[in-house]
């Protein structure tokens, strides 16, 4: 399992992307990350909920309570239009970074 600073620096974008695809709740997101990366990267729950707090504070995502499971209502997250714009910006930035790094790190 990798645990690199580069991934950590882009966690906000990764989670934003997953929420952009459809409204999701906490465990679903951590499961999805493990699934897509074939368990090469797993997010710590503590980190995940910190990201939720941060994104919500910046009004990039909103939360609402969905269906009842496990004796309580699940808290779902959905992206705001500000979040979508932010994601687009991050995507552009990432492409540029990748290009620059590739200049040096690719043969």
């Amino acid at each position, binding site marked *: 399992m990798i645990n690199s600073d580069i991934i950590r620096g882009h966690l906000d974008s990764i989670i934003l992307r997953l929420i952009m695809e459809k409204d999701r709740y*906490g465990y679903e997101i*951590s*499961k999805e990350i493990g699934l897509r990366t074939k368990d090469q990267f797993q997010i710590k*729950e503590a980190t995940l*909920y*910190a990201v939720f707090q941060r994104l919500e*504070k910046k009004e990039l995502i909103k939360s609402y309570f969905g269906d009842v499971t496990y004796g309580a209502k*699940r808290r779902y997250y959905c992206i705001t239009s500000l979040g979508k714009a932010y994601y687009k910006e991050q995507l552009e930035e990432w492409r540029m970074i990748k290009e620059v790094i590739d200049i040096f790190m690719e043969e």
Partner: protein
Amino acid sequence: MKKIREYIDEMFIEIPGSEQKEVVKEEVIQNLEEKVDDLIQQGKAEEDAINKAIVDFGSIDDIKKELMGRQPIKKNTTGLHLGFSIWGSALIIALCLFANFYYTPYIIWFVYPTFGVLWWPLAMFFRWLKHK
């Protein structure tokens, strides 16, 4: 499942109480319980599943930082205090100067209150320096 709740309760103890904290705590507990159920369904023993969920949880520091950051940060007002003290003392000194030369032009007494008043901006200056 009680173990999960106990563990999270303990982790959240160091975060000062707030409505937000309780909401996040409940959310975390609920999602961890779901994870444990998931792991059990994948064939893990309950004990193992709970332990894995706890290990995977990571450090509370991230959440702590976000939740504590919600409290308003004390603004640095020392610059304002310094400015106020300079203007205030300048006005007081000017008044003394005026009174001195207008009413008693042959006795120079204004330096005494001036020295006293100067402590004010001086104190504020060092406070400002410390916070800069």
